[in-house]
């Protein structure tokens, strides 16, 4: 098993090397096969691991408490070995890890297959570069979830940040795209600072970074330490998973190719923050203050992003803000102590968000690159598979039963209700907004009359099989994926996911009565259905939006980017130019050049000594003799 497990990340890494180094010589078909094949192989191995997970770990008792059992840790080599600090390169394969492995490799594989068709028009070497980066990303993400300590997690963390930068700026000749890539990386890095500080704090207080050792040491840490560590870890998660205030990079990241947006910015990389907090649930449960902050930030982000999505006209931007909003939901769940709900939502979100992004890619492909929904419309007749799968995705994200989104969102809201009614209220409003803007997107894009150019009208066609098959697979998953987490009130023993994760992630205690739970479910569903109907009434036949003040506020993303620009970017730039022009040029250069000028001056003055007059030379000799004489007899003791 040990040898099998390290193949999971190794195969995509080999794919990265082969595709990266051979990008100029390998054919596009071969590159696509290698790229997708390695991820498929990793998926198969992950499946084997998942099915045999019980042989690795003893199952926990049905109480749902987390007993800190020794999970299967695979030690490969000593990574860092300084006197008292040992950081081994080990993988920890438990239920949480294996679930994420399936999501990453499974959805990843589908997106690789999709990319072979979507990126078809690229030149050969750029096609190879794309798949190399994509494989490198899968490798880093796998390292992230498989690591047995915070350092391996951080290596993967950095790796996915790097790949995000590389892939957002994939079409590097466009300066706006490269700026977006830079923005993503820099904001990520700010979060990473928090993460690093947290790791240092952990090392100082517990002497180790391994999960089992740190979690055992929770009892020894003071409340201050716990709050500090968990807050700093959350700062890292906020950067990676696009929460307030570090979320503005995600919409700009839509500059990358659509499959990239699907994989990185919907299904996997942005969920790394949630994984990390779910993994550290023992730390977080011991620091209730941080949990509160996490929940508040999550709820606020969810609401903010949902309002912005109401008024976006770029199909990918709507989905991007939707992602930020759904991530807010996940953090709300984490903050409410409903860790399983958060992981559940990660899973269902991966399915339907990837589906929605790939569907939008299919639409963009058919519309010859047009991304503005105001110039689409009436596509449902011409792109049946895309339309149906997109529709299913919208149903899932809106939380209509019995689709997957309903179960996971419900679990999230239940957790929120038990924790704080106000946050639950925000979550409910956001659910309504989610349903509204998603169906707005669906109706404007697929219903009504076609608003594009004649040329586009002729070109519109359903996408090839390599693109539609992943759509179909993801649609099926979006429909049935929720049945692993059917709440107890509906079907006894339906909480399969919670049971599965229980050794690692504690299930939330049932603090509400069955009646309340059913009422909440009904309320959420009713709200969602009303929102869908409202969107149907308003957007069935597309009309221009009325320009209201609130509408403009939403459309301009609450002017947050402008705020950051004024408060942070410009002062930093001014500081930089100050350092460059004044400190560097007038300070340091003046000093260095000054030394040179001094030497020059000294040389010029000394030159006068060489007069060529023999007489002066003799005089100097005599004077030196006298001085030596004086030194010899009168100065020396």
């Amino acid at each position, binding site marked *: 098993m040990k040898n099998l497990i390290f193949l999971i990340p190794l195969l995509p890494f080999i794919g990265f090397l082969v595709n990266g180094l051979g990008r100029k010589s390998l054919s596009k078909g071969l590159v696509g096969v290698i790229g997708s094949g390695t991820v498929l192989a990793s998926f198969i191995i992950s499946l084997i691991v998942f099915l045999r997970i019980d042989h690795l770990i003893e199952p926990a008792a049905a109480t749902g408490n987390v007993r800190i059992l020794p999970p299967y840790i695979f030690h490969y080599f000593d990574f860092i070995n300084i006197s008292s600090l040992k950081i081994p390169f080990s993988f920890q394969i438990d239920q949480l890890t294996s679930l994420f492995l399936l999501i990453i490799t499974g959805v990843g594989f589908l997106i690789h297959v999709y990319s072979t068709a979507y990126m078809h028009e690229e030149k050969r070497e750029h096609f190879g570069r794309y798949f190399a980066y994509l494989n490198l990303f899968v490798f880093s993400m796998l390292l992230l979830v498989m690591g047995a300590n915070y350092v391996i997690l951080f290596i993967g963390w950095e790796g996915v940040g790097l790949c995000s930068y590389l892939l957002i700026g994939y079409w590097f000749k466009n300066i706006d795209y490269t700026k977006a890539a830079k923005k993503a990386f820099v904001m990520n890095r700010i979060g990473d600072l928090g993460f690093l500080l947290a790791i240092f704090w952990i090392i100082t207080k517990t002497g180790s970074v391994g999960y089992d050792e740190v979690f055992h040491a929770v009892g020894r840490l003071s409340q201050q330490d716990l709050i500090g560590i968990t807050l700093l870890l959350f700062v890292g998660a906020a950067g990676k998973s696009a929460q307030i205030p570090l979320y503005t990079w995600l919409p700009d990241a839509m500059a990358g190719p659509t499959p990239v947006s699907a994989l990185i910015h919907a299904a996997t990389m942005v969920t790394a923050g949630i994984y990390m907090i779910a993994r550290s649930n023992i730390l977080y449960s011991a620091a209730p203050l941080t949990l509160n902050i996490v929940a508040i930030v999550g709820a606020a982000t969810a609401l903010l992003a949902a309002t912005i999505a109401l008024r976006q006209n770029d199909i990918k931007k709507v989905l991007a803000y939707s992602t930020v909003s759904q991530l807010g939901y996940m953090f709300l769940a984490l903050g409410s102590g409903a860790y399983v709900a958060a992981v559940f939502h990660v899973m269902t979100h991966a399915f339907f968000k990837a589906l929605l992004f790939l569907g939008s890619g299919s639409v963009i492909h058919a519309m010859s690159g047009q991304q503005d929904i105001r110039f689409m419309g009436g596509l449902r007749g011409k792109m049946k598979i895309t339309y149906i799968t997109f529709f299913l995705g919208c149903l899932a994200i809106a939380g209509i039963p019995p689709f997957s989104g309903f179960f996971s969102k419900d679990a999230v809201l239940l957790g929120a209700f038990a924790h704080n009614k106000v946050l639950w209220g925000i979550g409910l409003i956001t659910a309504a907004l989610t349903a509204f803007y998603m169906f707005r997107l669906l109706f404007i894009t697929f219903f009504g009359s076609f608003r594009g150019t004649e040329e586009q009208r002729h070109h519109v066609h359903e996408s090839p099989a390599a693109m539609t098959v992943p759509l179909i697979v993801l649609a099926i998953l979006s429909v049935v994926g929720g049945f692993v987490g059917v709440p107890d009130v509906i079907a006894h023993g339906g909480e399969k996911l919670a049971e599965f994760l229980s050794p690692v992630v504690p299930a939330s205690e049932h603090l509400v009565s069955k009646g309340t739970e059913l009422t909440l479910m009904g309320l959420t569903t009713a709200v969602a259905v009303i929102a869908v109907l409202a969107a149907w009434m308003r957007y069935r036949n597309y009309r221009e939006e009325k320009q209201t003040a609130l509408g403009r506020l939403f459309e301009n993303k609450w002017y947050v980017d402008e705020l950051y620009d004024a408060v942070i970017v410009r002062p930093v730039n001014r500081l930089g130019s100050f350092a460059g022009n004044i400190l560097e040029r007038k300070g340091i250069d003046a000093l260095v050049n000054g030394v040179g000028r001094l030497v020059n001056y000294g040389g010029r003055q000394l030159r006068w000594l060489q007069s060529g*007059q*023999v007489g002066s030379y003799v005089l100097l000799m*005599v004077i030196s003799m006298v001085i030596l004489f004086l030194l010899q007899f009168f100065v020396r003791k």
Partner: protein
Amino acid sequence: MPINYYIFLSIALFVIGIIGVLTRRNAIIIFMCIELMLNAVNLLLVAFSKMHHLARAAQDATAGSDGQLFVFFIMVVAAAEVSVGLAIIVMLYRNTHSVDVNFLNRLKH
């Protein structure tokens, strides 16, 4: 005679020699002044040698001979140096038709 008289005479001769070297323009006069300095030193050496001899003549018949020996060396050096120096002056005269030392500022370039 007290040794002081010899010392004063020697110093006087030496200083006259130095001033001559520094101030005179004629190369041959400068040489003569250098010789004057050397001879001043010789005088002093001989005077001290005699002083030491007188102080210890009873024990050692050859006391104070090192001073006089050294004088021989100095004379040899002086002779050698003069021959070389005069040769250079002759060459100098052949080139510039004068023995004025101030014409030698070609070293400036």
